[in-house]
């Protein structure tokens, strides 16, 4: 397998607190990988270790198949990143900040810098000082900085922070274009799960500093497909009827009165007709989709969202 990132037993402790423990993470070439977890779960710490911002307490990181540590930081020439709040030399202009960044990377293409600003829709503000920027503009400039030197891997921590809905869509489209057209591998984290669902190929779920699962979004969709949710006046009898009359066994009673049917061989109409014919008062019946949010929530809390 062609790994861009592979970590083995990666851990970080600070002040006797484990921020990340035994992380074994794999990111394949050309994919968009999402790190999911609650605030403080350890996503940012992992990203900081991957970008050299913080040194792991133990464990190993391989980037592009080579061991990554303080002595091999030249590998970071191939990585773009935006971690936490976008920080800049605020007294400098947007262009000066990009130039400074690019000099560290040995990249001197002024045209390329302007193109990066164009891509994040920040053209025309090259001479404006960063201290005059709004949070959304800083976020865009941070993204421009991450992509400017045409890296092979881009690591973005909450990339849509501070952006308006149009800005969020723009960034999502930009990530997809860079991934599809240029084959750039992405590692993203976001607390907006619905947003991430539209972009990532695989997710790594982080809980209390541990990577508890890595799974392809496609697999989650296969496992947690659509279901029919219904609300009746007599849930127990409903469950009995569904089983005896329609042969449905893959279902779940939640919140005491709601029934989720995962076995979709019968349509809503067939189920409704059968229940009405047995004098069951049907208050609600809807076909729903189990989202990444449901999966994520179940994984972390070890059960159904409404259980």
């Amino acid at each position, binding site marked *: 397998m062609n790994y861009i990132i592979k970590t083995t037993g990666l851990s970080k402790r600070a002040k006797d607190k484990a921020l990340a423990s035994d992380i074994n993470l794999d990111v394949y070439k050309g994919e968009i990988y999402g790190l999911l977890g609650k605030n403080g779960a350890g996503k940012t710490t992992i990203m900081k270790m991957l970008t050299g911002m913080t040194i792991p307490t133990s464990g190993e990181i391989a980037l592009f198949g080579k061991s990554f540590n*303080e002595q091999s930081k030249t590998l970071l020439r191939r990585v773009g990143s935006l971690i936490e709040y976008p920080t800049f030399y605020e007294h400098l202009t947007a262009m000066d900040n990009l130039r400074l960044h690019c000099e560290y990377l040995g990249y001197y293409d002024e045209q390329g810098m302007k193109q990066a600003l164009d891509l994040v829709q920040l053209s025309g503000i090259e001479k404006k000082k960063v201290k005059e920027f709004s949070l959304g503009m800083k976020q865009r400039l941070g993204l421009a900085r991450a992509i400017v030197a045409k890296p092979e891997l881009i690591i973005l921590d909450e990339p849509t922070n501070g952006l308006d809905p149009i800005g969020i869509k723009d960034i999502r489209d930009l990530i997809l274009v860079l991934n599809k057209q240029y084959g750039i591998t992405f590692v993203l984290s976001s607390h907006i799960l619905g947003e991430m669902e539209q972009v990532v190929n695989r997710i790594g779920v982080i809980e209390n500093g541990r990577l508890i699962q890595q799974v392809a979004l496609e697999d989650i969709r296969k496992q947690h497909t659509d279901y029919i949710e219904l609300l009746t006046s007599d849930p127990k009898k409903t469950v009995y009827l569904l089983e005896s009359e329609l042969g449905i066994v893959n279902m779940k009673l939640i919140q005491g009165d709601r029934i989720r049917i995962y076995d979709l061989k019968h349509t809503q109409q067939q189920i409704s007709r059968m229940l009405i014919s047995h004098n069951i008062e049907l208050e609600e019946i809807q076909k729903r989709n189990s989202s990444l949010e449901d999966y994520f929530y179940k994984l972390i809390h070890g059960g159904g969202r409404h259980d």
Partner: protein
Amino acid sequence: MIKYMRLEWKKLDTKNVLAEVWIYLIIMMLLPTFFIMKVLPVFGQSYASAIELNSFIQLGYVLFGASLINHVFIEQYKNKTMALSFSYPVSRKTLFTSKILFIAVAVFIVSIISYLLSGLTTYVLNLFFSFIEGELTASHLTSYISKILIGSMLNSIICFVPLFLFGILKRAVVPTIVCSLASMQLPNFSSFIHVQPETIIIVLTVLGVISIGASIMTAEKVGEI
């Protein structure tokens, strides 16, 4: 390394730093004349005494070094641009070495300019107000040139005394400045503690070297964000 030092300069608010340098230069330029005329006329007994006085005055650039430690280390830790620097393809040791060399070179150059300006200004003002007795000889000039080089070098080492403890470990501006003020004033109070001023300067220089060494050697551990 020179590239990284140049980038440290680019990161600074250069207008403010240059304004600060100008203020230092103007004050230091006039201070020897002021001291001889108004505070310590005894240093006007000869050019040798005046040169000695100026050497102690020029220790003031230790404070300029503290100001640069604040800009190059403490502020960058506080506004998180240090973390950004750690994400560049440069090791922490190289990064810290370039920052230290940048400060050392800046203090050295500004000290040399200041020595030259203050020497020239004092000489010219003395032509008008005659506050230094005797004639300026070639041996005075030779002695002054060696003072310029040695004094500037000492400034660029002593200014690092607060770096490791207050600049990197504590990341605190006020203790850094206070430590620098103490370092630059200590030789002036040598008679109170019955120690030769040269001994104090040697001790401060050793402390500066230790602080530089500790900062670079422990960059990966204590330099963490």
